[in-house]
């Protein structure tokens, strides 16, 4: 009874739509973006001239800017990991009153234009409380030069980068911890671990890949940070100038070639980092390909 079609007069043919149309549509849509992306990068490279390249490697301002970029991005990345790992873990594993609210607050720097973060930092460090605290500490240590307000100093560069990058790092680490199942940790606790030991011996080794991702995101965002650095750190040559603000400065005085040269340098740096991280990531992945979770 089940092997006979009750409506034999119906044509039992199936017209499968073409797959070619599907792929063509998707490829064309993708290609629009890829074309633009490659286009702007190639245009940049073509605009660079020998003079600008020479100047790039010889101008002390630019060399300082380069050094500060590398140092500040590295310091910021370490600070981001220092905060994102514990906070990501806590947000992933524990429930508490007000968690939803905290979640929202932590996402704010991701949603806002970074320049808003810059202005907010400027205002925060110039509130009465901070100035009052600074005055108090100056009197207490009898040092009129003591400053806790980092505005327009190198510290402010790091702080500006940190406030934005850390939000991304926290999100990344939280996702990372969410994906590590709780079971192994629970077994470790029953075997005699404190929560700290379980974290150190069981979770951390499995979070390495996530940490590299979070570090890469932090480094990349810090390098690209512009608005808050301009507002909060200023962009004083030989003091608080970083590569992103160099591009802006050169552009604003009409040196488009120089601005482009610095841009090209940043494109190359970003590419190398992404490439290295990808290779490292694949290497780790192959080693642990068959892990059951």
């Amino acid at each position: 009874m089940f092997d006979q079609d009750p409506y034999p007069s119906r044509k039992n043919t199936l017209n499968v739509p073409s797959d070619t149309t599907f792929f063509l549509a998707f490829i064309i849509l993708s290609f629009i973006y890829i074309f633009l992306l490659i286009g702007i990068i190639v245009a940049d490279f073509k605009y660079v001239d020998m003079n600008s390249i020479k100047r790039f490697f010889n101008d002390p301002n630019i060399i300082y800017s380069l050094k500060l970029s590398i140092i500040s991005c590295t310091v910021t990345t370490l600070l981001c990991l220092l905060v994102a790992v514990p906070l990501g873990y806590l947000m992933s594993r524990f429930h508490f009153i007000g968690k939803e609210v905290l979640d929202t607050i932590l996402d704010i720097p991701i949603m806002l234009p970074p320049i808003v973060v810059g202005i907010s930092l400027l205002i925060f460090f110039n509130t009465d409380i901070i100035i009052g605290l600074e005055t108090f500490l100056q009197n207490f240590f009898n040092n009129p030069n003591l400053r806790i307000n980092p505005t327009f100093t190198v510290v402010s560069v790091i702080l500006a980068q940190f406030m934005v990058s850390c939000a991304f790092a926290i999100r990344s680490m939280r996702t990372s911890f969410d994906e590590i199942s709780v079971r192994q940790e629970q077994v470790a606790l029953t075997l005699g671990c404190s929560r700290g030991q379980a974290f150190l011996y069981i979770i951390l080794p499995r979070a390495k890949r996530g940490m590299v991702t979070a570090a890469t995101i932090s480094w990349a965002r810090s390098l690209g940070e512009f608005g808050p650095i301009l507002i909060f750190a200023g962009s004083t040559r030989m003091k608080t100038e970083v590569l992103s603000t160099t591009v802006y400065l050169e552009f604003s005085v009409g040196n488009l070639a120089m601005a482009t040269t610095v841009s090209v340098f940043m494109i190359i740096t970003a590419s190398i980092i992404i490439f290295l991280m990808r290779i490292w990531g694949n290497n780790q992945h192959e080693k642990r390909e068959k892990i059951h979770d």
Partner: protein
Amino acid sequence: MRKGKKFMIELIHFEVAAGSFRLSDINMVIPSGKYGMLLGKTGSGKTTIMESICGLKKSNFGSVLINNINVTYKRPAERGIGFVPQDGALFSTMSVYENIVFSLKLRKWSTKEMEHRVGELGELLKISSLLNRSVVNLSGGERQRVSLARALAFFPEVLCLDEPLSALDQETHKEICDLLKKIQHLTKTTIIHITHNPIEVELLSDLTYQIQGSDVKLIFDRSKNKLMGVNA
């Protein structure tokens, strides 16, 4: 506190909740050295009870006593319970050997003592040939054995098994079943084994409780050869 009777595991007026359900006024006792079983359908709360006994989940009310000590407010590490979850949950970044000695390293055993203990367990559980292997790529049966070895290493008073036979094929099922009987007999560890499969009651248990709705009732006592009030 009961005087005179030696219970290894006792739940008194115990209440747990997880998600939408609640099990209240649970009173369970398992005497020392006996094989206890908790039978319940999927989702009935048996894993929650086990997690609460181990200290991995907070209970709402009542007490857990292990060897007459009230451990209700103690951390999992302080309860001396060996926990074997479903699927083993072996530490994926460590070798079989490192998994087994994990609890011993925490207790600062010497290398010699650890090696000796691993030797004993390797023989008991037939995993001596696996020691240097990574835990990735072990078969289901091998994973269970290593997980058992890891849980037994530090001589726990209680062994908690979460559906140890559910994920195994028929042949391995019999193997591990025999192994569990052997472990109970040789190590005199008190065992709680949770499962949804009533067949295991007759095969293994000395004492079985069943989750019936929001209650937990004793349904089988091998010493009295009694089967009572079973809900299929």
